[in-house]
């Protein structure tokens, strides 16, 4: 289904031979509504619309091969749609390389707000790496949430990946022991599942620093819920200011939230989206593709 803005573009730009401030006004207004409803931050919306306007006004006449090999002009409304997609894809970042399976010790740390999907993503990541030939180790570093350790143990058992837990009631110590354990056994990726925390919670942000000190992460992945609203920018910045972030995992994309928060997070932190989670089952983790998310955000 075409988003209102594209439909508007089709109506306004029918039979028109060139873009103008005038005939772009309505389509851009509709796209604006569409983006605001998709949770894209207002500042991002304005930047985006200006960029699209520039692309359209500055573009050359495009030709394509139509029926019977005749060279035809691409309709203005198609060009408008294309401009929107291209601009959004560029903003979202070209498909970031996924976390590729590789042999050898390394530490991956998952962090983020409460309930975003860290524990389930940890298991999914472990399965992804295991399928790629690795022997990963899951680490139950959430010593706060009731039955969090048990949750990871059950998930680990389901995918037949070892789960390290216990040894201490201190999260950093658990991680330190886990890395040592992995080294002893010659395991590959050590995946740290940490407790959900607020970026403004000093005690828990300190805990994250101590975990990182005890088990220095090679990759830190921020796990974000795709249905987040405008606060996504502040949350992501809050985490990015304390920890170097190497990637984003966007979860619950099997829902119907448009996922505009992803654009805001990307713009605010520059962190590439590495994976998307599209379901609860352990195989529902996919590498990120800008095209898919762009068309979803545009509606």
């Amino acid at each position, binding site marked *: 289904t075409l988003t209102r803005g594209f439909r508007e573009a089709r109506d306004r730009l029918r039979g028109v031979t060139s873009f103008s401030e005038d005939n772009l006004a309505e389509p851009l207004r509709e796209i604006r509504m569409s983006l605001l409803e998709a*949770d894209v*931050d207002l500042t991002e919306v304005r930047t985006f619309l200006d960029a699209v306007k520039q692309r359209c006004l500055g573009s050359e006449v495009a030709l394509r091969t139509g029926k019977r090999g005749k060279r035809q002009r691409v309709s203005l409304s198609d060009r408008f749609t294309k401009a929107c997609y291209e601009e959004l894809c560029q903003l979202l970042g070209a498909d970031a390389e996924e976390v590729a399976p590789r042999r050898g010790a390394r530490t991956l740390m998952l962090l983020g707000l409460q309930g975003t*999907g860290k524990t389930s993503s940890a298991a999914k990541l472990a399965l992804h790496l295991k399928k790629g030939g690795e022997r990963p180790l899951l680490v139950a570093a959430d010593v706060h949430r009731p*039955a969090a350790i048990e949750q990871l143990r059950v998930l680990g058992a389901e995918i037949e990946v070892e789960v390290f837990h216990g040894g201490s009631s201190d999260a950093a110590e658990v991680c330190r022991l886990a890395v040592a354990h992995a080294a002893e056994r010659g395991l590959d990726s050590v995946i740290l599942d940490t407790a959900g925390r607020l970026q*403004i919670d000093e005690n828990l942000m300190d805990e994250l620093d101590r975990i990182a000190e005890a088990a220095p992460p090679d990759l830190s992945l921020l796990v974000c819920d795709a249905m987040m*609203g405008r606060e996504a920018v502040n949350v992501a910045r809050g985490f990015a200011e304390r920890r170097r972030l190497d990637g984003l995992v966007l979860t619950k994309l099997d829902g119907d939230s*448009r996922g505009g928060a992803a654009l805001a997070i990307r713009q605010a932190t520059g962190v590439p989206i590495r994976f998307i989670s599209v379901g609860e089952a352990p195989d529902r983790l996919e590498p990120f593709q800008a095209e898919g998310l762009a068309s979803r955000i545009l509606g």
Partner: protein
Amino acid sequence: LHGRRELDAKTLDEIENLLFGADLGVRTADDLLGIARDAGSPDRVKERLQARALEILQATEGEPGSDPECGGPPRVVLVVGVNGSGKTTTVGRLAALARTRGERVLIAAADTFRAAAIDQLAVWAERAGVELVRGSPGGDPAAVAFDAVEAALARGVDLVLVDTAGRLQTHAGLMDELTKISRVIGRKLPGAPHEVLLVLDANTGQNAIRQAHEFSRAVGVTGIVLAKLDGTAKGGVVLGIAQEVGIPVRFVGIGEGLRDLCEFDAEAFVRALFA
């Protein structure tokens, strides 16, 4: 807004930024922007916005379900919502709240799907000092709810809290499952569930309005629990829900501890929203 002389375009622009940044529904944001524009002067904007927001929230009070017409104990409360929003934690705290009022409470572990969901709820049941009715993992959630209501009737329990598995409204099969759970409860005790609480993560954006619509369609939501309000998100989306779906907020979650669930205070909420 402080120190601004007049409501010029730049000021209105900033107000618009503020409103959209609070996750209000797009329609609600426009409604409030209109209020701001008509306020006349910058220092009257805040109080006008707060007044209008309060009006929107209070319009939902006294909707059916807010004062359960109970034929007698037990009162049955079904807790629903999307994955990770805070349902299980909310159930634990609701149980604790009810106990401070001297009520006899039973919790039903009707999330038979997610890893360690029953174990997690068991910890909360213990913290709140209440009993847990459970089934077998992977079993029928409606059967657990049924058993809990049956047990409550037999033992003269005042309140039954039913925790359910998280589900996204896009999964029709799971929404049907929820409808079935509610229907089975009603068969055991006509009129039940007396309350259906949708637990909403305060960080959620516009999708919250869709959640309210869809969950309402499946099980008739009577109230919202706004969880994680101790974070930086303001949960403004409940204004959009109030305007478009007419559901009131009943409780707010302000932390992860046993005492961190309070009754909703609309005035405090709108003050914080437009601080």
